[in-house]
């Protein structure tokens, strides 16, 4: 029997709300740390320096070849055997960041490779040193290609965080399980949790659309009418 009353009480249960907040910040922080790491790994894999290429390649191979769940348990429960004891949240962050960065590095690599060679040549011909070529010319154009799959990864990560409940991080799923234990309304509790996830991914979808429009500047541009040109010129003056 379905109880609407139980369902609604789960929906505004502070236990779940706090759990949802943990899920959001865990995802955001993991992504924010994983992305720069992914750029470094992608650069390492494209490097001419062979040892660096081997190390970064091996890292991606290891992280993508083993389940995150196993990695998390090793980090939290296994490493203390070697004397390395990490807190719950630290363990979760280390696992999520290391794992996510490996996947993101592939997205970064594909993005960088998608920028035509002529772009970096034009930048070099102007006299830009290598890091400026990368930061000013290659990266902004790579981002345009990277944002859709990156957004996809963020969406996935929101849900992947449920795995850290296994090492007792009190994110949304674990909090829901606690709440359910008081009245055993499993269906109502987990439906409420599912709605939370749905709300979070939907909101993210809107953010992603805005991001895509922002990094796509110049690319959707169509030959403009006189009026649009004048507007663009005006906009320039007021900037």
């Amino acid at each position: 029997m379905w109880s609407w009353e139980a369902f609604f009480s789960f929906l505004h249960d502070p236990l779940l709300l706090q759990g949802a907040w943990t899920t959001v910040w865990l995802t955001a922080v993991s992504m924010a740390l994983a992305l720069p790491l992914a750029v470094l790994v992608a650069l390492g894999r494209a490097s001419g320096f062979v040892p660096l290429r081997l190390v970064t390649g091996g890292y991606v191979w290891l992280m993508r070849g083993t389940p995150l769940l196993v990695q998390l348990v090793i980090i939290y429960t296994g490493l203390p055997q070697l004397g390395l004891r990490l807190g719950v949240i630290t363990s979760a962050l280390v696992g999520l960041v290391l794992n996510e960065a490996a996947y993101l590095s592939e997205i970064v690599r594909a993005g960088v490779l998608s920028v035509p060679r002529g772009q970096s040549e034009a930048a070099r011909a102007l006299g830009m040193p290598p890091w400026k070529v990368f930061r000013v010319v290659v990266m902004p154009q790579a981002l345009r290609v990277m944002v859709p799959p990156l957004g996809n990864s963020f969406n996935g990560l929101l849900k992947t965080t449920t795995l850290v409940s296994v090492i007792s991080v009190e994110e949304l799923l674990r909090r829901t399980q606690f709440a359910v234990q008081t009245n055993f309304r499993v269906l109502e509790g987990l439906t409420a949790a599912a709605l939370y996830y749905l709300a979070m991914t939907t909101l993210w979808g809107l953010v992603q659309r805005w991001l895509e429009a922002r990094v796509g500047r110049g690319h959707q541009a169509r030959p403009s009418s006189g009026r649009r040109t004048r507007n663009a010129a005006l906009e320039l003056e007021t900037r």
Partner: protein
Amino acid sequence: MTIETVVEAHQVRKSYGDVDVLKGIDLTVRQGEVVLVLGPSGGGKSTFLRTLNHLETPDSGTVTICGERIGYGEKGALRESRIALQRRRTGMVFQQFNLFPNMTALDNVAAGPVHVNRVPRAEARAAAGELLAMVGLADKTGNYPAQLSGGQQQRVAIARALAMRPQLLLFDEPTSALDPEMVGEVLDVMVRLREEGMTMIVVSHEMGFARAAADRVVFISDGVVVEDKSPDLFFAAPEHQRTRQFLDRIL
């Protein structure tokens, strides 16, 4: 010596695997000279042009621009970040324009001064606006490259190269990717630059430009300089069989 030497290339060689693309090219260009480089495709002329700013590194030989050896310092081969500093003296215009698609025409032109010379953005944009006006694009400053025709894009690319105040401009087939009716507007800008005394090396098949604006024609085939003379002499009395065959095919 009253007339300064801008480019001095000596025995420049380059090969890719077994293919010898450049087999020892010599070229001297003085200040204010316009040199047209002609030759069959695959003959090495673009590769040679690109060795002049070390977008291609020669296997051997030397390139000296305004008295400075490119790619090498007192302690041997330079790192890319140091070669970048040397490239500021040389502007380059590409066949495919290679404008930055995510920047407006104005920001394309300002990119060099802002990111290489650290000129304040407002100042660089003001200067960029003047350059765009000079190439006849004063009303297109806010347009993105995708909103411009090929001829307009190439004129923005020329303005972008000029923004660094180069001593030398390299043109790699600047009109080959253009529709015929847009070739003129780009050549006009190049002729005007010549009148202002810009030193230019132009890889191109534009015979009209060769006759109207070139001081010398250099014919490169099979990785060597076959002829190097004034346009009048080059077209009227080519000395070599290879040159005559080439001219027969394209004229």
